[in-house]
């Protein structure tokens, strides 16, 4: 029984490029909802003021995290609301995808939330988020001139993050230039 055909039956979706109509942003929040960093590489549509935008983003992720944990069918005990968990423990939400973007999320045990918004065909970004968290530890936490809880103003950190994310973007663009084909065959 043939389920999906090849690309001649349904038109393949347009190949998104790294720069183009796809949003590309990064947020870093701390435990108390303070937005430590907001970087934007491509954002065609801005609807809210940046404060409202940050509040909305933080509230959304806070609720999503507790919702996913409460609805977990495999574990009996649910953690306390808002408490960050160790990686691998409990149920952790890591990404959601719409037809126009994909949002990847990671929370460290200290409550630092990293959010990356990329184009919808991005793969699993958990390792990239871990790498960015390591950059945060190296250039922000270990910087004696930084006061924890305040927005990040470190040139070194901004530069390295920019380089890394642009590198990620070009990798994905190269990968997507090969034409995708969807063939899914189920036999009785």
């Amino acid at each position, binding site marked *: 029984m043939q389920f999906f055909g090849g690309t001649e039956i349904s038109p393949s979706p347009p190949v998104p490029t790294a720069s183009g109509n796809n949003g590309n942003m990064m947020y870093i929040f701390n435990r108390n909802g303070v937005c430590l960093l907001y970087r934007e590489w491509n954002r065609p549509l801005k609807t809210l003021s940046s404060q409202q935008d940050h509040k909305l983003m933080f509230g959304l992720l806070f609720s999503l995290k507790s919702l996913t944990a409460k609805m977990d069918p495999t574990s009996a005990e649910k953690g306390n609301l808002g408490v960050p968990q160790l990686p691998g423990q409990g149920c952790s939400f890591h990404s959601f995808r719409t037809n126009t973007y994909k949002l990847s999320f990671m929370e460290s045990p200290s409550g630092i939330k990293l959010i990356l918004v990329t184009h919808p065909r991005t793969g699993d970004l958990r390792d990239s988020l871990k790498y960015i968290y390591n950059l945060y530890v190296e250039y922000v936490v*270990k910087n004696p001139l930084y006061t924890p809880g305040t927005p990040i103003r470190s*040139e070194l950190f901004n530069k390295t993050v920019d380089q890394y994310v642009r590198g990620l973007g070009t990798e994905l663009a190269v990968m997507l230039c090969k034409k995708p084909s969807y063939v899914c065959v189920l036999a009785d």
Partner: protein
Amino acid sequence: MVREVSESCVESLLSEIVLSYCSGFYANKPELAARRIEAIGFQVGHQLSERYTMDRPRFTDNLEAIKFICKDFWSELFKKQIDNLKTNHRGTFVLQDNRFRWLAHMSIDPLVQASGNIQDPSAMAENKSAQATGMHLYFPCGIIRGTLSNLGIECAVSADISNLPACELITLITYNSFSYI
């Protein structure tokens, strides 16, 4: 026997020393705080030079002692050597490290840097951050002074950080025991 210690611990300890002296003990007297930090470095340098020159013969002159600092001493402390050594042959040596390990994580506010000297408040903020960065260099200066003092050479050491993360340590030798040989 070589004992090892975690690098993050050392760096956190050093930044905490500077913070507590500058905003804790000597809150409004940066010169006093600087002197205390440099004195701690002096003690450390004294003891370190004792340990690292244990199996070596005496140094024949100033240049040999400075070269020891640039090569062996710096490799023991930072796993690399000094990148550039300049001298005026009259007692002044400039040791340049292109990527000073203890400053590698520091970085200043890009907005402050961009505005430059246009308005007074931003110039003040830039000076403050330069001053804060400078405070972290009193400890290495003290280390060098202590090391040389244990080898019989009195000197004054200052630091220049015009381009991070490169760092220049300027050593002016005031007295040495070799001039009487």
